[in-house]
């Protein structure tokens, strides 16, 4: 902070402000984009380079209890991919679940400056915040798992909708979360309470509750809409990963009924019915999903593309991880959280010769290439579920470079490819579209008005890439990365360390709701109500993003 910068001669991609590859100056003052910089400001000559806002990852798994279990369970994955310290930065290890320091530096090293951890149990919030505090450079936040919450279920079941909404707001606020997350709604109760069963349709009864996933999802969309959260309900649909799940996904999307709703890693929810003689090999459902999203402006999604190679399945969807464990090898982790969630972890490898994996890869690419609105179908691999975030440059090349894509297509399972629509798609993404799906779009979906753009007053999170016909190379190692106006990476090297901010929301609620919540704690939690809310010490650098009513109230 404090220092000034003037970036000159670079081709600027700032889609939020309609700037598409113009050569123009970008000025920085006091950590923000400014109209001008003082004459003595440091100059960066970006001739032959592309200037973009810092990347924004709307959905990844980088911190918290399940991530740390996934880290701990794979020493072999860290050993070959070390992250040495420098004079100014900490050491760490990589692999598909890097240590916290390696995570922050590697995101920054790709030009990303914001990332959202997509699934934290409320009880695990304190842990997640401690890890995020040790995740350098980037700004970060997390989505809190509320879709299997027993007390919220009880309120919903009893039709106590106002209390339901207040309790939801309470849970988001006291955990310092950014958005409410639903994962396989209803699944945990069956998993934990009914001998590892699972939900199979939106109309299944959820164990002992007089509720169905349909009712739960609608309830959350309703409440979150009323709260005016900057990012709406973030949904991991039922039947994720299952052949034929496209029907469930479309049904779930319809439940939004015009209200903003975000669908996570839809690739995993875009499988058509089984093909040919096989009972399980899915066809592609990408076209149906893409069409629905294209024609429903209230719906947004991140793709959750699959990239071949090492990954880690880590999810609140415990039955899914259990199912995948038969393909994953020897290790399986399951972790139940009282009254709140389940969790499953399986180390996994996507293989291009395997029908299902090739289909998943194709479906992800199809979703990108069929999307007509890059602002609402944004970039993700559901790191590390579909692949590590370090594969992003390759995914960008797959989208931007038809010939590269074709060459890759020749190497994958051809039966799967035949049954996908990928062969028919010749579209190539432009740099402007890449800037939308990797920064401007996610920032807008998150309601982060000062991110993903380079207008005056925006956060000075800027990435400068050297132009290169090989887009994978270009996006792999930016020449400069600026965070909050500070030059963190210069000539591809870290110059200083930096601590980013926690981004969270604090929706208002009727304080009377605590009288409803507290007795439940005394009966069914093993931590005292008074010790549950996370205090400000866990967010030493933070920014509260206002809800719609708060923003309206604050206006003069």
């Amino acid at each position, binding site marked *: 902070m404090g220092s000034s910068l003037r970036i000159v001669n670079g081709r600027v991609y700032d889609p939020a402000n309609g700037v598409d590859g113009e050569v123009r100056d970008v000025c920085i003052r006091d950590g923000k984009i400014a109209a001008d910089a003082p004459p003595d400001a440091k100059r960066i000559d970006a001739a032959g380079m592309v200037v973009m806002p810092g990347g924004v990852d709307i959905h990844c798994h980088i911190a918290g209890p399940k*991530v740390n279990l996934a880290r701990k369970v794979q020493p072999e994955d860290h050993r070959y991919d070390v992250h040495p310290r420098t004079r100014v930065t900490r*050491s760490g290890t990589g692999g598909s679940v890097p240590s916290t320091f390696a995570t922050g530096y590697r995101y920054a090293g790709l030009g990303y400056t914001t990332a959202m951890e997509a699934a934290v149990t409320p009880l695990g919030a304190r*842990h997640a915040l401690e890890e995020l505090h040790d995740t350098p450079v980037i700004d970060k936040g997390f989505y809190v798992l509320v879709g299997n919450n027993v007390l919220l279920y009880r309120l919903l079941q009893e039709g106590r909708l106002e209390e339901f909404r207040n309790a939801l707001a309470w849970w988001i606020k006291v955990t310092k979360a950014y958005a409410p997350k639903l994962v396989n709604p209803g699944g945990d109760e069956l998993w934990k309470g009914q001998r590892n069963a699972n939900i199979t349709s939106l109309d299944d009864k959820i164990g002992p509750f007089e509720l169905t996933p349909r009712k739960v999802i609608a309830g959350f969309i309703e409440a979150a809409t009323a709260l005016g959260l900057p990012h709406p309900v973030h949904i991991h649909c039922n039947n994720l990963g299952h052949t034929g799940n496209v029907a469930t996904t479309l049904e779930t999307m319809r439940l939004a009924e015009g209200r903003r709703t975000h669908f996570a890693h839809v690739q995993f929810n875009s499988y058509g019915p089984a093909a040919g003689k096989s009972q399980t090999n899915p066809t592609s459902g990408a076209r149906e999903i893409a069409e629905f999203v294209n024609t429903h402006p209230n719906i947004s999604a991140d793709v959750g593309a699959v990239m071949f190679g090492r990954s880690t399945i880590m999810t609140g969807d415990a039955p899914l991880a259990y199912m995948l464990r038969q393909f994953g090898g020897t290790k399986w982790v399951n972790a*139940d959280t*009282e009254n709140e969630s389940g969790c499953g972890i399986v180390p996994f490898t996507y293989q291009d010769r395997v029908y299902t994996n090739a289909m998943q890869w194709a479906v992800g690419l199809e979703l990108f290439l069929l999307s007509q609105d890059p602002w609402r179908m944004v970039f993700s691999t559901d790191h590390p579920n579909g692949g590590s975030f370090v594969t992003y440059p390759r995914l960008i090349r797959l989208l931007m470079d038809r010939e590269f894509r074709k060459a890759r297509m020749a190497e994958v399972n051809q039966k799967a490819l035949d049954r996908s629509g990928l062969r028919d798609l010749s579209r190539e993404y432009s740099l402007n579209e890449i800037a939308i799906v990797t920064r401007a779009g996610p920032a807008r979906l998150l309601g982060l008005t000062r991110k993903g753009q380079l207008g005056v007053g925006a956060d000075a999170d800027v990435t400068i890439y050297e132009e290169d016909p090989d887009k994978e190379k270009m996006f792999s190692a930016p020449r400069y990365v600026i965070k909050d106006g500070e030059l963190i990476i210069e000539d591809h090297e870290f110059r200083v360390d930096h601590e980013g901010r926690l981004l969270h929301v604090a929706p208002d609620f009727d304080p009377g709701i605590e009288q409803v919540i507290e007795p439940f704690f005394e009966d069914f939690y093993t*931590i*005292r109500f008074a010790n549950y809310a996370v205090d400000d010490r866990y967010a030493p650098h933070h920014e509260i993003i206002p809800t719609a009513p708060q923003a309206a109230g604050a206006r003069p």
Partner: protein
Amino acid sequence: MSENLKFVPHATCTFCGCVCDDMDLTVDMDEKRITKAENACVLGKAWFREHGIEQRPYALIGGREATTAEGVEEAAQILARARFPLIYGLSDTTCEAQRVAVAIADMIGGTVDTTTSVCHGPSGIAFETVGESTASLGEIKNRADMVVFWGGNPAEAHPRLFSRYAVTPKGMYIPNGRKDRTVVLVDVRRTMSTPVADIFLRVKPRSDFEVLWALRALVKGRRVDPSIERRTGVSLAVLEDLVARMKSCRYGAFLFGMGLTMTRGRHFNSGALLALTTDLNEFTHWVAKPVRGHGNVTGADNVVSWQTGFPFGVNFSRGYPRFNPGEFTTVDLLARGETDAILILASDPAANFPKAAIEHLKRIPVISLDPKTTLTSQLARVAFTTATYGINVGGTVYRMDDVAITLRPAFESPYPSDEEILSAIRDRVRALLGGNRVPAVAPAVAAAS
């Protein structure tokens, strides 16, 4: 007793891995003493009673009284000079202090190891091998209708594991508490815990692995030879009955202790138990949980894991974390005489390590941080007196089930916290080294060799 009493509700006991957060404390503020700890078990009561403020020098350097600042300078000089330094302990302090301890090890290219390497290290290794189905303690309270304690004596070591979490408490689907649960205890001898069990399996010493493997075979429907009884002391009929119960319960939980992990078989034992848990999930829901001893050993595992990727025994001398139990674990490093300086954080290895390791401790500069005088602090070159976590110092502690809890200190101590001392040491070492110490060998070369 004075009139100057303070009430501190919802405080947390850090004496054992149960980390009970329902301590309602009464503090005599004149005497700086906790006079009452409501809800605490006998161990917790003793913990709170014994931690008043003792009159000790802030620091001792070579046995001579010194200020904290002088101690920091001496400690920093020792660590900056050392070629193969080790930071050990960590499990009886806050996560905030643990984070700084790992940072120092990283900066100087030393080794960091925790007491996990001498207690549940084998469970950590087993976890890396087969994974684990596990749960927060509240799930066990709310759902577990069958609980199996293996190789532990909670009645004497973790009393409230029975009363607050796993045996007697009523839960959401366990409305009648104890009556709704089948409780099994497996051990090599009768202990104070035995009477709590519906079923007690007395196994012959050093045969836990065989019992577990036989159970796995039976769960999978394989034949087990009746000679198992001669080997293990447990008859085939008993094992078959147990398996039938395990398969038919609704939610089962194993809670296993050092009687399993530190006896013959070690990580094979933990691995067999975790694999059995996985196997049982074919039939019904099962979880397993190592019962951890020290108050924040689980925090230490978590902190070291998120900062390095590995849970304990991590070396940074090549510029990045490497994990190798046996090579980078403290007993081994000391016994082989490799360590040339050691910082011991809230632990007393001089009291319980093997002789060869203690002999080496006497030969090298030791830096100790402890609220009390210990055998370790007595042989230290620099001994800091610190405030006690949970009693005088706030911060974060992880329960044995990975649930993080914020401490509510009862009264202030004149002594600094571990975190404060470590932060000062870190800053001073950084100044002495001019930043992180970066090894001369190119990392790529080192990684390949």
